[in-house]
């Protein structure tokens, strides 16, 4: 979208990075990385012998290869690790074929499945990920292997872009939409158009009628929750049910989804107790990159991949 001189981007989750203070990476055998280049955001994760070491969450620019390099740089920024120290790097996501430092690319369906299994534990059976330009539902086994999947990346309805277009239209940042959508006297009917373009006109109509913004947010979140539910019901939801990607942070959509489904999503917390005790950050947008890095680890351990480490 052509934005002239816009001071704030209402639709992007903020950038962040972090390094694990409890691990000395130089003592580890396999250093693997996963780079998930999405249409809106890019995540890079470094795992050392399968343990969570560092991550960076940045915005994807107009150029996928540069986004991967920037993401990786941001991840390693607070460490003394260099890209040349990495044994194996896997690219995933929308821009996975354009990750210059990757030795292999793996689809985000497989990576999200494995990543969700690591983050939330072996009891996970259904993973729903909504990224910037897609929405996927994956049924997995206790090892994070894909049993069944369904994806939509053709239609903006029910994707992060659908929420962004809305945030941009009403000039409210995405992280405020969730909470504000509940500050209403009563739940309004959902926006009726599926198509984001037509939904936009509907929203404009409501604004012109003087409907309060919070109510419009509720109507939009409700419509999006309904879209997702249709996709989930097509595939079948089994508990434990987890949500990854940026949308997991939007309680306006998630709480309504839980209500419509009659299934609660798993609490957003690490499966590994030590991670919780040590206060490691839990960012749902990292599932793809974590899964990719874990695949790298598995391939090296099984002898199916050769280390690309230069130093």
């Amino acid at each position, binding site marked *: *979208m052509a934005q002239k001189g816009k001071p704030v981007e209402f639709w992007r989750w903020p950038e962040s990075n972090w390094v694990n203070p409890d691990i000395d990476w130089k003592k580890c055998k396999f250093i693997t990385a996963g780079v998930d280049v999405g249409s809106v955001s890019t995540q890079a994760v470094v795992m050392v012998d399968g343990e969570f070491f560092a991550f960076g969450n940045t915005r994807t620019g107009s150029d996928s290869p540069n986004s991967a390099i920037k993401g990786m740089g941001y991840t390693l920024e607070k460490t003394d690790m260099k890209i040349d120290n990495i044994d194996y790097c896997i690219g995933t996501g929308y821009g996975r074929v354009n990750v210059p430092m990757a030795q292999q690319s793996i689809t985000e369906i497989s990576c999200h499945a494995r990543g969700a299994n690591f983050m939330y534990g072996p009891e996970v059976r259904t993973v729903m990920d909504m990224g910037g330009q897609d929405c996927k539902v994956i049924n997995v086994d206790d090892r994070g292997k894909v049993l069944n999947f369904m994806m939509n990346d053709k239609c903006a309805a029910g994707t992060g872009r659908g929420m962004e*277009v809305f945030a941009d239209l009403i000039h409210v940042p995405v992280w405020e939409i969730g909470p504000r959508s509940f500050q209403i006297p009563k739940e309004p009917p959902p926006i009726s158009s599926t198509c984001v373009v037509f939904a936009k006109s509907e929203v404009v109509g409501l604004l012109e009628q003087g409907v309060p913004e919070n109510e419009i947010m509720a109507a939009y979140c409700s419509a999006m929750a309904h879209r997702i539910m249709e996709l989930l019901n097509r595939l079948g939801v089994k508990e434990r049910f987890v949500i990854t990607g940026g949308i997991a942070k939007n309680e306006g959509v998630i709480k309504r989804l839980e209500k419509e489904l009659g299934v609660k999503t798993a609490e957003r917390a690490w499966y590994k107790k030590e991670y919780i005790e040590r206060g490691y950050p839990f960012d749902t947008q990292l599932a793809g990159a974590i899964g990719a890095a874990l695949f790298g680890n598995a391939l090296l351990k099984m002898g199916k991949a050769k280390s690309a480490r230069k130093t």
Partner: protein
Amino acid sequence: MIVAGIDVGGKNVHIVIKKDGQILGKGASPTGIKKAEAVEALYDQVLKQAGLTRKDVERVVATGSAAKRVAFANGSISDVAADARGAIKLFPNARTVIDVGAEEGRSIKVNPEGKVLDFAINDKCAAGTGTFLEAMSRALEVSVEEMSKIAFDSTKAIPMNAQCAVFGESEVVSLIHQNTSKPDISRAVMDAIAGRVGAIARIVGLEKDVVVVGGMAKNAGFVDSLKKNIEMPVSVPDDPDYMGAFGASETTLSGILEEEVKAKVVERESLSEGKAY
């Protein structure tokens, strides 16, 4: 006998007033949010320009996605039927009618009497409609009329991956960042819409003569892309966006398929609004 056809579309209202086959007046205006009011205002305007009053019109037939907003109509017909009737009148050899409007695209198979044999609709999705073109026009910062012209200056065909108006906008923005020329992007957009429309047309089968109508038919760049996509020549009437209203005006009372026929002569009524959108 003076008759009127009123097409209340998602974006625009079109009205045609005829007497014994001669068009006395026509007009178009945006439907907006208060649809019934828009219809009333335009109807009175077109009547005035033709030197007529409501009482002079013996039969009013409505069509379009919001046909029900024309409370004073004697009856309504589906847009598919309207397109078929109108096209056959102007093009007796028409056997396929492709109508691409602001919010819907459809392809209709007709017989020599103008009867609808089969049809396929793309609705609820902006891709393959005028809305897609407008979204790309905003991203490109070039008017749709200009895009239609410069599409013919394109030197390179670039397939668009996006099958969605929202994703298409991002794709156009990244094409601009890659320094793709505006003529090439314009052509790519026309090709993308033509691809969607052609696919719909192939579902019911393409039989000549093919007539293209609706607002998008005014766009020469799009029509050119469509011809190439379906690999057939096409005919486009003057004022193709009036085809729905024209076809409605062609419908006799005995030909109305939906609703009970109101037997009274048209006169001015005040309307209650109902839900505004």
